[in-house]
């Protein structure tokens, strides 16, 4: 039961990472391709978020199935990764010029909010796990 409780944070992270990964492709994707088939730069931000989202899913799985030390380390690793994801649209990869376009109105805020929640959940999870370890010592 205790182990289950300690891994609940990992499950929460996994759910949010799946929402981010699938969401950026299905629910809040970047703008569609031009009529001539070319993509705008926001498409590459979407691809980058999708890639990092998969990495976050894998890290969340490691937190759930891995040992205590591994889980604590993986939780810590998820924090900067989530922060980088939040910065990906617009700051690291520029989006469309018009703020009324879908990449600005839907993708960017959704990615920022979900990434911030992932970073916060990972920080809480790692703090809880490290404190438990310190208490046992």
């Amino acid at each position, binding site marked *: 039961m205790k182990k289950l409780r300690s891994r609940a944070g990992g499950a929460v992270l996994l759910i949010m990472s799946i929402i981010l990964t699938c969401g950026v492709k299905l629910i809040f994707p970047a703008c569609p391709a*031009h*009529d*001539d088939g*070319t993509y705008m730069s926001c498409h590459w931000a979407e691809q980058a978020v999708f890639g990092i989202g998969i990495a976050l899913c894998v890290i969340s799985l490691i937190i759930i199935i891995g040992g205590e030390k591994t889980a604590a380390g993986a939780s810590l690793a998820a924090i900067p990764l989530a922060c980088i994801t939040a910065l990906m649209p617009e700051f690291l990869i520029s989006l*469309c*010029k*018009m*703020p*009324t*376009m879908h990449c*600005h*109105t*839907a993708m*960017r*805020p*959704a990615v*920022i*909010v979900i990434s911030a929640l992932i970073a916060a959940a990972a920080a809480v999870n790692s703090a809880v796990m490290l404190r438990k370890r310190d208490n046992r010592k």
Partner: protein
Amino acid sequence: MKLTESLSFRNVKGRPARSAVLLILTVIMTAAVVCGIMTVSSLRAGLGALEARLGADIMVVPASAVSKKNFENIVLQGSMGYFYMDSSYYDKVAEREGIEKVSPQLFLASASAGCCSVPLQIIGYDPETDFTVSPWIKKSAGGTLGDYDVVVGNDLSVFVGGTITFYGVECKVAAKLDKTGTDLDTAVYTNMNTIKKLIASSIEMGMNDFRDIDPDHSVSCILIKVADGYPVDEVLNDLNLHVRRTKSFRTKDMISGVSDSLSGVSVMIGVLMCAVIILGIVILFLAFTMSVNERKKEFAVLRITGASRKKLSGIVMSEALIIALSGGVIGTAVALLIMLPFNGIIEESIGLPFLMPDALMIAVMCAAALAVSAACGAAAAAYSARRISRIDTGVILRGDN
């Protein structure tokens, strides 16, 4: 004594399930209040900005344009679309009596293709006769608008001095306009020469087909300012009677459509907000009444150990305030997390002018929502607090209640 050491706080903490349910309820209630107030206020600010931005009393458009889908949004809010009439109508309109200022505009929508930086509405205007766009340009940068110079709406991510390409033609951004909360914020204004060159370029690229329309002798709409002493309705009727194949509109009447939609949305939001608040108060009231009923013996024991009646009611009120205020803070945070990042998509889905209030105004709204949350918590617990202060300890401890 610290809050965390107080009996009320321990009571809240000691019943996690009950506290969590009440907390979620106050979070929903406060979030609904903050979102509702911010949405209504943004819609009102948007309408105000739109009214201020439209300097014309009357708008003349081709009669065929009225049947166009999205017609009002094209002329009022700068949504993408176009229609044309012969420029001779401009002279016909200018000749009529009671007209102080008259200025033509020509519309062109840029394409969603590699030849254009962004798909948006390009509006050509005559800087010499214009009285609706120029006042807003002066506020931003000033100066005259040369060929291949454009003035961009506030929402376009291009800087003054930067360039923007339409149909393969590179234009220099000469100025930026103030925000209106409408599609005008993403429109581009340029002089008649430049827009005609852009039209020619779009035809050359095969992106537009003007068929029998001659872009050099066309206008999309004519804006009119009525001279002092002439009733707007009389001038409007005169134009509709004598300038055939066109349709003249009073801009205020056109805005009234937007205004009616806005009041409809505002009423709906207000009703929903009230429903959530009333429901919240009723549920909180029932929860506190049931909780106090369950804990009568606990309060009776406190009473015989020396707690005054005021102290007992104070405990109930403090519990309610702890839940209401913490729920209020979380609810406000949730509402801000929804409204601030997602205001673009909210604006898109409502389809009305939407101008978010400034930071100070948002802070005031959040404080008001917190006050509402605290007041609801206090109102819901007041009856229970009054009842508990009048308990007969003897009867309760004997179990005769």
